[in-house]
């Protein structure tokens, strides 16, 4: 085999392997480090979803306490009855606003509960991404009596 043919076959093999890997992990297997690293909410939303703004949608049921006595454990639940492919939670006043980003498979439902830490009282955004990429969201203020980030 001459060198050129070898390189060509190698490239074809690599491309095939990449396609196979992508097919096996229909949900991106990578943790979105860039979005978790942003210290501004709009920038974090943009990094994660490609658009800075979401449309306010009353169809999103966002359960969050008005007053969280213990910022170390703030229970949140986001529910949207329509089709969706992702749900994410952003806490404006946390050092890094993105708290959690959930990916929903074909069989997944936009109904997720999680407990997070909040250092201070803050606006908390729940964002839902529809299958076509459209962003919906809603915001709530959570007052924190004792911060939960230690230090």
């Amino acid at each position, binding site marked *: 085999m001459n060198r050129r043919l070898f390189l060509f076959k190698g490239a074809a093999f690599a491309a095939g392997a990449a396609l196979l890997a992508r097919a096996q992990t229909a*949900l991106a297997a990578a943790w979105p480090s860039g979005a978790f690293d942003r210290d501004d909410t709009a920038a974090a939303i943009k990094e994660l979803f490609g658009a800075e703004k979401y449309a306010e949608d009353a169809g999103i049921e966002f359960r969050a306490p008005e007053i969280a006595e213990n910022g170390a454990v703030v229970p949140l639940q986001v529910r949207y009855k329509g089709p969706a492919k992702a749900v994410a939670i952003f806490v404006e006043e946390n050092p890094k606003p993105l708290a959690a980003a959930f*990916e*929903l498979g074909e*069989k997944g439902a936009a109904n*997720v*509960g*999680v407990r997070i830490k909040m250092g201070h009282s803050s606006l908390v955004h729940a964002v839902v991404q529809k299958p076509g990429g459209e962003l919906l969201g809603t915001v709530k203020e959570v007052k924190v009596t004792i911060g939960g980030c*230690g230090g």
Partner: protein
Amino acid sequence: MKVKAKAKGGAVEVKLIAKHPMESGQAKDKEGNRIPAHYIERLTAEVGGETVFAANLGPAVSKNPYLKFYYDGAVGDKVSLHWRDNKGMEASAEATVK
């Protein structure tokens, strides 16, 4: 990891608690040294080889993370859960839907 999976109203409800310190990297120890960040980055749930749910978590998720999610499934499904943290530690668990 403690997992409960239950068929409920036409869907399956999965509740789990993963044992993990979820250090934010913001806290300090008694000597005033910063405790390095240590947290679960990604948790996935598979049913029959298909990923139904994946959670990307940041250091702001509470210690011993609790998660609740739903997927379109039925009694008898085997739900395989797996997490990996920012130091490369991993854990798995499986639950049968009741």
